[in-house]
């Protein structure tokens, strides 16, 4: 009986803790997003974040996309050839890349690279009193540290995904024409015939949401880190793990919204 009560008490504490954590995160998110549209604006911080998130993530996103497209063409060819449906390789590659793999893989790569870096930077600022120092210098830390990064994530991720989409399709095209013997013109025609505006737009909307999630988790975990170097390390890990899980969860929700019949 006591063990059962202990379990119920633990469950209650866990659920209450989860509610509190979700509420705090939601308030942090609303606060951060609201500062995007309220002056003063920190253009230099935005540019710095945009370059960090967008430009410096290009190599890793590009490599991921091109190899993903190549693997996708190879795998789909071997699978579809069993049903004599090789001609569907082009459409499968382009739909997979634009709808799913482009935004999700770019999001996961950026989460690992940028989410960790944001959490580490803001976490270090927290444990070395730099965030308190901002407040004493008439500067709202949410406005200075969080809002420019959120805006940069919102804009940079879709641009990265445009690049990822192009390179992913190109990777598939290279494997299909060089290794699998597809006719280049036919492959490109198939690709262009099957792709629709909604496929690309849905991927870009997902990318924007993922961009906000990555930055949000980096900022939130960093902003609330405590306990010195170990705390900053824990915040960094939590930022990457939580952003990655949220990307996959929101990917499902958004797919359901866009494509569920």
């Amino acid at each position, binding site marked *: 009986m006591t063990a059962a009560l202990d379990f119920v008490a633990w469950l209650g504490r866990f659920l209450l803790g989860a509610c509190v954590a979700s509420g705090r995160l939601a308030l942090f998110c609303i606060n951060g997003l609201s500062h995007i549209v309220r002056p003063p604006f920190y253009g230099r911080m935005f540019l710095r974040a945009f370059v960090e998130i967008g430009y410096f993530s290009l190599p890793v996103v590009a490599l991921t996309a091109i190899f993903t497209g190549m693997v996708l063409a190879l795998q789909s060819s071997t699978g579809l050839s069993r049903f004599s449906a090789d001609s569907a390789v082009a459409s499968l590659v382009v739909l997979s890349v634009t709808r799913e793999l482009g935004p999700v893989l770019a999001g996961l790569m950026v989460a690992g690279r940028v989410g960790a870096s944001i959490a580490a930077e803001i976490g270090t600022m927290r444990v070395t*009193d730099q965030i*308190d*120092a901002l407040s*004493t*210098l008439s500067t709202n830390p949410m406005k200075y540290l969080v809002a420019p990064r959120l805006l940069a994530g919102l804009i940079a991720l879709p641009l990265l995904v445009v690049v990822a989409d192009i390179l992913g399709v190109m990777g598939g095209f290279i494997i299909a024409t060089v290794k699998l013997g597809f006719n280049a013109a036919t492959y490109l025609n198939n690709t262009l015939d099957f792709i629709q505006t909604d496929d690309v737009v849905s991927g870009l909307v997902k990318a924007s949401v993922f961009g906000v999630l990555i930055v949000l988790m980096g900022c939130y975990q960093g902003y609330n880190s405590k306990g010195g170097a170990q705390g900053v390390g824990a915040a960094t890990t939590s930022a990457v793990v939580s952003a990655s899980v949220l990307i996959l969860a929101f990917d499902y929700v958004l797919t359901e919204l866009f494509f569920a019949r």
Partner: protein
Amino acid sequence: MSAPNVTIRLRGVSKAFGEKKVLDGINLDVAAGTSMVVIGGSGSGKSVLLKCILGLIEPDEGTIEIDGVNVLTAPREQQAELRSRIGMLFQNGALFDSLPVWENVAFGLLAQKKCTRAEAKSRAAAVLEQVGLAASVGEMSPSELSGGMQKRVGLARAIASQPEILFFDEPTTGLDPIMGAVIDGLIVDCVKRMGSTAIAITHDMASATRIGDRAAMLYKGRIVWEGLATSLLHSGNEMVDQFTHGRREGPIQMELRK
């Protein structure tokens, strides 16, 4: 309302973190143009006290008045205005390591729109000179500076906008005695030159007597003694005597976690 010559007045300020009561009904007056030094052991609540006045931590109870205005209940704009009149030197400098020194020093000036970005560098150089640093230091990154230089830059940042109130959180911690004396001298010079009201927290007795006009001792969240800073070393209060002379035996018992 406060008496006209009192710049900072605290009444019944209390703050607890969970079960631990860090501040327990603090009453403290700091007269305009004077320096108050708050001494006390590690974990006695000195930093929390400063953070409460700065608005970085909200006290559970009590009132904090600056020039007669309760900063805890004042409208947000007025709170921001009152706090913009405070400069703070943090214990570890808290310099922004992503910015060069000159941008650190001019940060408050730019935030308060007291100068343009084009003017900021020369303004920063002038303030750096006041704390004994060459203008060329402005181009360096905070990570390239020694501990003493970081304190000077932190001090330059705190005084750049010529605040009416200055807070110093352990200004000499981690410095050798000579550099500590240099920093104290700079603090006294700045405070006197600007006519600022200052609160410094420290457990460095030499620093306390150099910086302060008056002193108060914090123990277990309460002010247990207040008097002239010059009388710190012979206050007649058992707790202050034990603390200032560093005696193991006495009314103050170190709490050891079991």
